[in-house]
């Protein structure tokens, strides 16, 4: 008596459970790449932005312990308020004189002497003299 009543009830709800096993069928499990691609691109973009932000923060964070000659150069340049052009010139000078650490120029007044200047920086003599005045 009871089982008949249950069977009737199930049949009455057929519309609710007729697609119940669709997801388990092998042919229906393949994802469509075209559908997922926008999500992947979005995800990559977010990752790139995060990476860039972290990199930027790391680049400008001078308080973290590290062993980075370039960062030290920027740290000293920042303390002296040097613009990008002056920093570039000082880097060139350090490279030309073969310093392992570019920041060495900040503690080497003799590097700025006109007669010590390498050939390729002769044209910048005036600016270099100006930088010497500023740094020493």
């Amino acid at each position, binding site marked *: 008596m009871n089982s008949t009543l249950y069977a009737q009830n199930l049949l009455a709800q057929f519309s609710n459970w007729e697609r119940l096993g669709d997801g388990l069928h092998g042919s229906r499990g393949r994802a469509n790449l075209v559908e997922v691609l926008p999500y992947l691109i979005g995800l990559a973009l977010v990752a790139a932005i995060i990476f860039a932000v972290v990199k930027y923060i790391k680049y400008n964070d001078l308080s973290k312990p590290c*062993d*980075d*000659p370039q960062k030290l150069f920027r740290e000293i340049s920042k303390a*002296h308020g040097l613009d990008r052009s002056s920093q570039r010139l000082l880097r060139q000078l350090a490279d030309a004189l073969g310093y392992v650490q570019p*920041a060495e120029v900040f*503690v080497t*007044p*003799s590097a700025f002497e006109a007669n010590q200047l390498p050939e390729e920086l002769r044209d910048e003599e005036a600016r270099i003299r100006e930088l010497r005045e500023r*740094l020493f």
Partner: protein
Amino acid sequence: MAAALEKTYEVLIGSRNESAGPVLMAALESDDSVVFEGALKAIVARRSKAGHLAVLERWHQLSPDQRKLVHEGRGRLSGAIRDSVLSDDTQLFENACELVREFSEFDLVPTLVTLAENQKSNHAQAATELVLQQVDRLSEMVRGPRDYSDRRDPESIRRYVLESLERSVERFRSHKRPELIEAFVVLGGPSCGLLRDILEDTRHACYKTVTNTLETSESAGVIDLLLSFLKTNGTSLNVLNIISRRADKPFVTQLLECTEDDVFSKITKNLGRMRSLAWLTPEESVAARFDEQDQARCVKLAVALGTKQGDLIELLKIFLELGEPASRLAVCEALISIPGDQANRMVLDSIRDNDPLVQASATRQLRDRHVPGAMAILLKQLDSTHGAVQKSAREALSEFSFKNFLISFDSLPEDARQSTGRLVCKVDPETVPGLASEMESKSRKCRMRAIEMIEVMGLISAMSKNLVELLDDEDHLVRVASADALQFSPTAEVQEALQHALTDRSGAVQNAARASLASIEEQLTGLPTGGQ
């Protein structure tokens, strides 16, 4: 230094970028002194062992001002100094040793001890010497007043260093460095258990080295240790024997200072267990080796020793004959507790001493010694020109007091009254005030006795004023006695008072006054008068 360069160095000091180290090291190569000194200061301020080592390598080339800059990094350089001490590079080692001395780097003593024990190391001897120097300095710090500008606790450092030295003592058989044992002894102190164990165990590997150190080391720490042992109850005889054998000046000076009252009581017990002191023997030169104050201290020490009386007397004789006044006085004071003929003779000799204090001391003890002729000497001393001698003689004759005389006066025969009375008068300065007080007594008997005492003591002239006052006494017998006594004081005041007494209501008083006036007249003119 220019502000801009200073700013660069500020960045380099504060930067957490390890690259600052090589930059500063490069600056350290500069010929420019401003750049060099800036780099030196920055390196010292940073916590970089490589940089600190670079500074240590150059230490011997630095000027005094530059060295001052390095001093500012005291504490941060410890790691580099430790590495340099262990380095094979002799110059670096020497530089590090100098810094160890200058910074008083006691933390490095265990490292130095290890190095000193290493017989293969070329730096072992230098390390040994440095250990001794550091331990001496630490010992001074521990014993001296605390310097609160130095945050290190000397006692904590001492315990730390002592631990490493104790381990070295245990390894003595292998390294055989007596200097390390000496360092251990200097720092150990009387409370060090291991040191006490060694001193009790003559078979201990370090026994000989330890006793030799205690016997020969002039280190202030060792001397302090020996004196601490001397102050400690139950110190072993081995140590006391060492103390008795030591005769070096620094030790003797310190030992003599222990005779000050506050310390002396602590050492007397152990001194009593010692037979002698090597430097304090009955030789004529002994007195000449010390100044006046120390001679007196020598005597004090000698008396406290458990020396045989004969030897002590011999020593005291030398100080009495050749010593300065303070030591002669000390000898005299010491003789109080020494009985016998020899001591008696020394006391009698001291009576003739040039120094009044020595004379006084000898005088004070003369009576108790029962020396023949003491009474005569004491009576002579009563007339001394020195107050101290007089006072001592009075003390020695203290039983001849006015109080005693007053009590026994009535029972004394006439001749004894006179002789004793005159002695009491000399001995007791309270005699005159005492008599004056008796003359004011309410008891007629007392007043009468006082007048009688004045007569037998020959004090009539001295007390004529008091006697004159008694001419107005309510009792006519007292007035009579007073008037009678006054005949021996022929002064104008007395005569006037006696004249007044002629009008007394008592005929006996009048008669006595008249007789006294006649007597005075006779004394003044030398002619007998007709008065009664």
